[in-house]
């Protein structure tokens, strides 16, 4: 019994030492991503509706988003200053950190009818974003699956009003198509893509 206690104490002490020498703080990007958690949640897994989940976001898209915000191509009073800060801290480390975090789909409740209607309306979107909403790096289309519905809906409204990536020729056709879609359908699409991967 005594030997067991000593062994357990030793094991605990060893575990403690290990934690000190190679704790989570030694993961590149771990502390650099701290700034993001105020809005995007710890490890990028926010439970909020209007900001994107960063956990599991592919690094290429994270970096594209940061570049677009910093250059003003994606106007945002919040993300323009913060994207410049992310670049100062090291975008590669932060992108790699979030890409490696376990995906946590948004816990926001969804209406089943909206999801079903969104699925029906999603044919055109799937051509670029994929049947599973996982996106396609070759086409430059981001993953949509599991993002909060509020965030997805706001982005579609921004595209529709040409307030996201204004003047981007590559997106002209997408924006034109969105102009013909009413906001209720956009909300259904947001519910559908948010439901994927849950």
């Amino acid at each position, binding site marked *: 019994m005594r030997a067991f206690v000593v062994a357990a104490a030793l094991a605990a002490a060893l575990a403690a030492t290990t934690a000190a020498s190679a704790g989570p703080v030694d993961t590149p990007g771990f502390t650099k991503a701290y700034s993001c958690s105020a809005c995007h949640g710890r490890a990028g897994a*926010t439970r909020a509706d209007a900001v994107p989940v960063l956990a599991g976001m592919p690094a290429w898209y994270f970096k594209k988003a940061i570049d677009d915000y910093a250059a003003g191509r994606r106007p945002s009073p919040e993300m323009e200053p913060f994207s410049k800060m992310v670049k100062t801290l090291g975008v590669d480390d932060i992108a790699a950190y979030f890409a490696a975090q376990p995906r946590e789909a948004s816990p926001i409740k969804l209406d089943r009818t909206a999801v079903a209607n969104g699925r029906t309306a999603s044919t055109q979107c799937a051509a670029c974003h994929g049947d599973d909403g996982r996106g396609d790096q070759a086409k430059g289309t981001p993953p949509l699956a599991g993002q909060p519905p509020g965030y997805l809906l706001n982005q579609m409204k921004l595209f529709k009003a040409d307030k996201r990536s204004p003047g981007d020729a590559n997106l002209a056709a997408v924006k034109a198509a969105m102009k013909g879609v009413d906001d209720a359908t956009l909300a259904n699409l947001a519910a559908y893509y948010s439901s994927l991967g849950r």
Partner: protein
Amino acid sequence: MARMTRRNFLKASGTAVVVSGLAGCAGMGGAPTATTTPTDLAPNRSGRRVVVIGGGWAGATAAKYVRMEDPATEVILIEPNAKFISCPFSNLVLSGVRSIESLTFEYDGLRKQHGVRIMRESATAIEPDARRVRLERGFLTYDRLIVAPGIDFQTEQIEGLAAAGDRVPHAWKAGPQTVTLARQLKEMPDDGVFVLSVPPAAYRCPPGPYERACQVAWYLKTRKPRAKLIVLDANQNVISKPALFRAAWQAYPNLEYRASSKVVKVDAAAREVTTEFGDKVRYDVANVIPPQRAGAIAVQADLVGADKRWCEVNHVTYESVKAKDVHVVGDATIGIPAPKSGTVANSMGKIAATAVVHLLTGRPVPEMPPINTCYSWVSDTEVMAVVNAYRIDNGKVVQIEQKLTPGQSTLYAQHAQAWATSIWADILA
């Protein structure tokens, strides 16, 4: 719990005894008997202990993040309040848009998810040379101390304010006074006058008083259209987001703003305030936000500067310039070019936690800048914001950029809600 066991008696009388854990002390009722040797409330056997004074936005964040970063470090959080009540969004309680309950959170997450030990009491003194914190019943030793004392009020600077008590609430620490002020507003006569007094900078939450003006004015416009709000500002102009607030106030003809109108006297019996220029303003409800300084423990421990108000710190480690191994975070600090906001306090908590963990484990401290976002509710549905990004340059925090929202909108209200959801979890869950 009142029964005095022999073990507790020994501890209470200051005799050194080794007991397992802290639980035995927590409910002990007896005060120390006449002895010069104070009681070690929890002998430090981990060899790596961080004590955090204050469980607000900065302190609770710091306690959690130290544990998250290094599970081998023991963390004790000293906080007298049983629950965490969010100051951000508490102006919405005045307008009835939110309830105080919706802003009230348990500390359970810190304890259960992160293993933070919480002692529900107040620190009475700091002994940096002995690396000890004094409490009413004894002391705690630390290897590193994080002081997050928030603010206290310089009530004595306004004649009659202390005597007025809860009749003239500040409601500047979310809690019972917030509820009192909301009730006073609701019960105010239909043609009444609400006076809101803004203290001179620096104070907690620069846009807060102006957001409060919006919420009170919105409530009056909606419920008591014959009533009036008079804002008496000690400063020469609106000190945060002035153009955005003045634009928002266009919707409130019942709001009268008077700059350079520092309130120096309150007469609760006559229901009248006096400004430093001798102007007298009669009120039905008065909300006087007093001048502020760092929380009492920071002043008592002389962590404050020559002005006896705020604490200067190292911009990378948040170590006090006045005491070794003592770090100060949150609204009590001065010198870092960032506002006294919840977001900044949360940032400082993480950065100081990281610094402390690196220092305790003998590693170089990474240079991490804070961030700021201040969302302000200008009506029941619309929000505007200021955003600040920083970097570290030669060991000092410098601003990269400040950006304002182009106006107020329901979109930014969604962002504000998302921020609150995420940051409350970042602090406590």
